[in-house]
């Protein structure tokens, strides 16, 4: 889906970053082409070490790209980053603030630096339900509170684009849901949210579009439904008394069948009715029929397996 750069919140072309380490050169991002449309939540997925954080750092001008071009809302970055940075709120990796200052003090310094009115600090503290705890030292915060403070900091700018790098890392289920709701709410306000993660199930629930990367390269991109649909044909799990007979009948009928844990799995078919019809014709009656929706996880596993990567995405 080609879109002009101006319609994209983020666009990178051939983005590259090589790190030098003890063993020589290490390519962290290898020619990444990433397009993030304006509006909605965009999942930025990839296993550990696939270059998500590195790409985000390059976008924010924290580290230098070796090659490639980047645009944010049509502004070339890092060259014109100062023009657009006010519209971008970002959390890179873990939240980082001055531990000896209170959450509020940390926010006040940031707000003052960008010339925001004083009231905004209370407002964002309220918005992230930190409220009273804002007066406590950052050092004393729980992980969830730190994460909320980081989100509060991004909201100081009243941004159009939010970049959250693994915002739910280390949070409990309630915390994860809270962050998810926050992202949804932000996107409902018309903001674009880019959320990186290696926990796929989590992004799948909130993302409108996704990009999947591995080894610093784009593997797949698009609407969640399309990415799932394109990559793995849906399949149906079939329970039947005489597995061998059913297997033969369906295979003879030209279907792709395998056995899996006392059930048959028929790949490449979405409609279970076809199966029941064929088996019933041979007086074999289906006692179980489960359509298996390919989720992002299996897509992800497949894509990264193709790349020869091991995935560390959490199982559902």
């Amino acid at each position, binding site marked *: 889906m080609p879109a002009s750069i101006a319609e994209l919140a983020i666009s990178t072309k051939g983005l590259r970053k090589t790190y030098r380490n003890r063993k020589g050169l290490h390519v962290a991002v290898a020619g990444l082409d990433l397009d993030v449309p304006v509006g909605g939540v965009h999942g930025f997925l990839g296993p550990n070490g696939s270059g998500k954080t590195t790409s985000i750092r390059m976008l*924010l001008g*924290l580290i230098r790209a070796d090659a490639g071009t980047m645009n944010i809302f049509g502004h070339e970055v*890092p060259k014109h980053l100062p023009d657009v*940075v006010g519209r971008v709120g970002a959390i*890179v990796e873990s939240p980082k603030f001055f531990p*000896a200052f209170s959450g509020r003090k940390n926010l006040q*310094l940031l707000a*003052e630096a960008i*010339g925001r009115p004083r009231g905004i600090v209370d407002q964002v503290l309220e918005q992230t339900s930190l409220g009273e705890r804002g007066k406590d030292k950052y050092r004393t915060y729980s992980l969830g509170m730190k994460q909320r403070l980081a989100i509060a900091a991004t909201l100081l*700018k009243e941004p159009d684009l939010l970049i959250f790098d693994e915002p739910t890392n280390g949070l409990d289920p309630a915390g994860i849901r809270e962050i998810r709701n926050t992202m949804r709410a932000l996107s409902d306000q018309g903001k674009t949210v880019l959320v990186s993660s290696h926990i796929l199930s989590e992004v799948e629930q909130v993302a409108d579009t996704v990009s999947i990367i591995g080894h610093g390269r784009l593997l797949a991109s698009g609407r969640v439904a399309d990415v799932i649909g394109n990559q793995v044909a849906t399949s149906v799990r079939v329970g039947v008394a005489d597995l061998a007979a059913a297997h033969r009948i369906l295979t003879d009928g030209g279907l792709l069948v395998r056995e899996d844990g006392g059930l048959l799995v028929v790949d490449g078919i979405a409609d279970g009715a076809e199966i029941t019809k064929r088996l019933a014709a041979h007086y074999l009656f289906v006692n179980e029929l489960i359509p298996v929706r390919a989720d992002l996880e299996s897509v992800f596993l497949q894509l990264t397996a193709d790349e020869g990567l091991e995935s560390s995405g959490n199982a559902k």
Partner: protein
Amino acid sequence: MRRLTKVELRRLFSRRLTAGALLGAVVVTGMILLGAYQQAKPLSGQQLAFQRAQFDQAHQNWALNGAQQVKDCVKQQAIIQKSDPKADFHCNDMEPKWGVNWGKPKVTFDDLMHSTLLNWSYLMAFIAFLIGAGFVASEFSSGSMGNWLTFEPRRMRVYSTKLAAAGLGLIPATLTLLGLLFGGVWLITARYGSTAGTTGKMWNDLGLMSARSLVLAVVAATVGVAMGTLLRHTAAVIGIAMGYLILIEAIFSHLLQNQQPWLLRLNMDGWLQHGTKYYIQSCKTDSQGQYRCDGVEKLLGFGHSSTYLGLLVVLVVGITAMVFQRRDVN
């Protein structure tokens, strides 16, 4: 830029390290004043009686043998003057004098202030350096620098406002402490020494020296910021500073005396005192075939010191600017 500098100033003075270091500076000032008091305070009754007895004895001895001693002195001097016409044995200044050779001469405000201010300036500069280094190093080690850069990505702005904040922030603190130091020494000498002979020129010189001391503290704070930015950890900065002091200033300077003009401490001395002296050992075999070593006094000009320090600051601040501009920040 102004806004950013104001924020940095606010952060500087919210830091516990800044407060602690400034408190330390107050304590240091107090201790230096205590030293000044020790120097100025009159002898106790016992010490005085002892000194008086010693003096009386010396004077008795002088009354008996003084004339002969002067004669001997002149003779010796004449011998030496054959090879060294400039030799001066001060033969007509041999009479023991109370208040000079014995007893305790009165301390003057000018003298005491000069030496006190000199010692204090070094310590203040070091404290300012630490404040500046910790101010930015903490940002790198806590990772908040990365966050800060997502709010202001123009790195030269970020860097220069930090330099400015540390420098500006040190001005009121240093001025206050300077006031404390002057007041303290004035009270001490007014009570135990003499303040009366302080001429306008002396005041003028002390004023200029204070101004240079202030400049030194401000510059030290900005160099601290640069070093903190370069090394990213306060401990690393302190380690380098200590390493330099011990390795170069203490050990190296003994081995290579001729290189003293290129050492930091001496140039700080030259800056503060508007030129200073240093000594090197000059050894040679004299006409009688004897190997002799003499301490030779050398002058280090104010121009040399100020150029040296100026270039050093430009170098450190400039190199750090280039490194920071290109650096990957995590």
